[in-house]
């Protein structure tokens, strides 16, 4: 596949592309079964030092089980789990250099903020003066110094979240596991905290593993995202690659919004795939290096923001263009989303940024419009 230049978020940080790079966390053919139910199915993955790795998937896809195996709360049914080259099985949770931030925060209700943060350090037998110093550092990091002597029930949700974060970072673990860390926060706070998490990870140089079902969260924070389904990782790639080059309809649909049209391949010559939509019979072209035989079934996919909507037919003949009628308009503030019913029966969603207050080419309900897109903006999915 010809790579559209979709670099990693952090320039130059892509150890997964380097065959010589040593993985920091490695799952080798790990399977975990709960009775008859297979939570994790023959999974192999390498995660690298200082990486921010996100496990993304619907509930029950096995993402939490992966994290709990790493923390030591679950043992793999088969397969190997390595941390920094050493086998982890047999090491109990309380001896692993891995700390977890729990979804429920799991703050000790009978201890003050200070003592919650100091809990892990005390277990290590750290001298009192050092503990006090480290706790002070952590409180400063999460900006909670005035709340040191409060009990958890006297804190707001956002403050609890920060205490949980400080507590899980206090021991300077090699790996921090974050289980839906921002799930309980409201949207504004969540977005702020996502950026704080990224900065923190950069600053501390730790490996972060985050479990989330929120795709925006995963896209924002992670170096790489693993999209999971039924105990398997369907695609593991940096956010931009996941978004622009999903390998299957499942991934394409899970991340962001996308139009998918079942089609028949009518020709494939030198990276220009021609398709015919099965229902709509529209002719479509996609510029993509992909091995698809003529007459096979494939899915044409395009993101709504890549579809151009206009009242006149485009002059450029190299673009795909289909006529239709506006069926619905959703005004979201920053963008408007148009549901356009093609003359041939399919519905395609197109978005338009509301950058100007007064639009030159206003489009309203039941208007006849043209949808158009460049061949290299569409995607051909074979599964």
């Amino acid at each position: 596949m010809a790579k559209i230049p979709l670099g990693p978020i952090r320039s130059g940080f892509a150890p997964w592309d380097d065959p010589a790079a040593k993985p920091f966390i490695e799952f080798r053919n790990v399977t975990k079964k709960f009775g008859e139910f297979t939570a994790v199915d023959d999974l192999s993955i390498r995660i690298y030092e200082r990486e921010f790795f996100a496990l993304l998937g619907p509930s029950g896809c096995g993402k939490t089980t992966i994290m709990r195996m790493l923390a030591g709360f679950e043992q793999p049914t088969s397969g190997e789990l390595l941390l920094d080259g050493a086998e982890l099985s047999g090491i109990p949770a309380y001896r692993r250099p891995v700390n977890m931030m729990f979804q429920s925060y799991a703050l000790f209700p009978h201890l003050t903020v200070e003592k919650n943060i100091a809990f892990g350090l005390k277990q290590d037998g750290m001298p009192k003066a050092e503990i006090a110093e480290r706790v002070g550092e952590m409180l400063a990091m999460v900006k909670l110094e005035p709340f040191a002597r409060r009990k958890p029930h006297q804190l707001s949700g956002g403050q609890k979240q920060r205490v949980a974060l400080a507590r899980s970072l206090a021991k300077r673990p090699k790996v921090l596991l974050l289980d839906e860390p921002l799930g309980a926060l409201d949207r504004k706070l969540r977005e702020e905290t996502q950026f704080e998490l990224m900065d923190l990870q950069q600053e501390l140089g730790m490996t972060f593993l985050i479990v989330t079902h929120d795709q925006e969260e995963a896209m924002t924070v992670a170096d790489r995202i693993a999209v999971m389904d039924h105990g398997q990782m369907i695609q593991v790639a940096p956010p931009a690659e996941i978004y622009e080059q999903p390998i299957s309809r499942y991934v394409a649909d899970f991340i962001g919004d996308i139009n998918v049209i079942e089609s028949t391949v009518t020709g494939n010559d030198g990276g220009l795939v021609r398709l015919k939509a099965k229902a709509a019979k529209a002719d479509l072209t996609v510029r993509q290096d992909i091995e698809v035989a003529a007459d096979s079934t494939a899915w044409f996919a395009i993101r709504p923001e890549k579809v151009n909507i206009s009242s006149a037919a485009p002059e450029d003949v190299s673009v795909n263009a289909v006529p239709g009628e506006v069926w619905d308009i959703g005004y979201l503030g920053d963008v408007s989303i148009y549901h356009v019913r093609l003359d041939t029966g399919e519905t395609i969603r197109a978005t338009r940024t509301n950058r100007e207050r007064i639009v030159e080419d206003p489009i309203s309900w039941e208007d006849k419009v043209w949808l158009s897109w460049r061949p290299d903006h569409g995607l051909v999915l074979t599964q």
Partner: protein
Amino acid sequence: MSSTRGSLAGRSRAAKTAGRPAWGRLLLIGIPYLWLLILFLIPFLIVFKISLSQTEFARPPYLPAFAITDGLAGIWEKIKQFSFSNYVWLAGDPLYYRAYLSSIWVALVSTAMTLALGYPIAYGMARAPRQWRPMLLMLVILPFWTSFLIRVYAWIGILKKAGLLNQLLMSMGVIDQPLIIHNTNTAVYIGIVYSYLPFMVLPLYSALEKMDESLLEAAEDLGCPPFKAFWKVTFPLSLPGVVAGCFLVFIPAVGEFVIPDLLGGSETLMIGKTLWAEFFSNRDWPVASAVAVVLLLLLVVPIVLFRNHQEKMAEKGG
């Protein structure tokens, strides 16, 4: 304590909704007070009054006895006859304070034993699969369906010299001489622990059951081995249940009469038995009443002090 707070809250709410008749609310608040008045305060005052009277061969067996026909002046005359001589008598006879001390000691030891036995039971119940828990709770409550007296009697059959326990142990060859348990303090401990175990298990269970299991995982994750995590996390969080359970066992155990009477022997000195003897053997109601009042003070004063202390701690925390 809580009732005081309740009435304060009621008053402020009443103030907010001024204009509406408040007596509905007063009635609601009044019911528990009425309950306390009728079932606690009035009986206590009657007992207290008897404890200030003198024993007399009469019916009732004490003087002075009030009558409605006395009139206010007559009642005042009789009140002037009250004296604390029974309390002086209690203080003078070592039998009584030895009985108090011994009762408190027996109650303390049996409370500790009930806690030691009840905690693992409650813990096991709280960690049992969710669908089993109602059944386990039922099993804890089940003994209450039989009369307390009969259950204590049944222990005689188990503990006596030719009883079930001795027969079993001897047939198994564990012992060749029967154990003497019945009519000793050991039997009293067994009886109290057996009878009051549910009162310990239930509050402990309710405290342990609502504990979030992720707290233990968090402790382990932070480097705390499971056994240590129990003492660092589970136990401190179950303390309200421990305190409630201990009070529920200790208080009735101090004044327990049936168990020491049926299972204990001559060495068993408990205030409940003393009280019974004063009332029914000596027919000395005033002294018996004084014994009861002192017992009540011995129990209530420390509890009130403890609760005050706890509230202060809670306020400090809050």
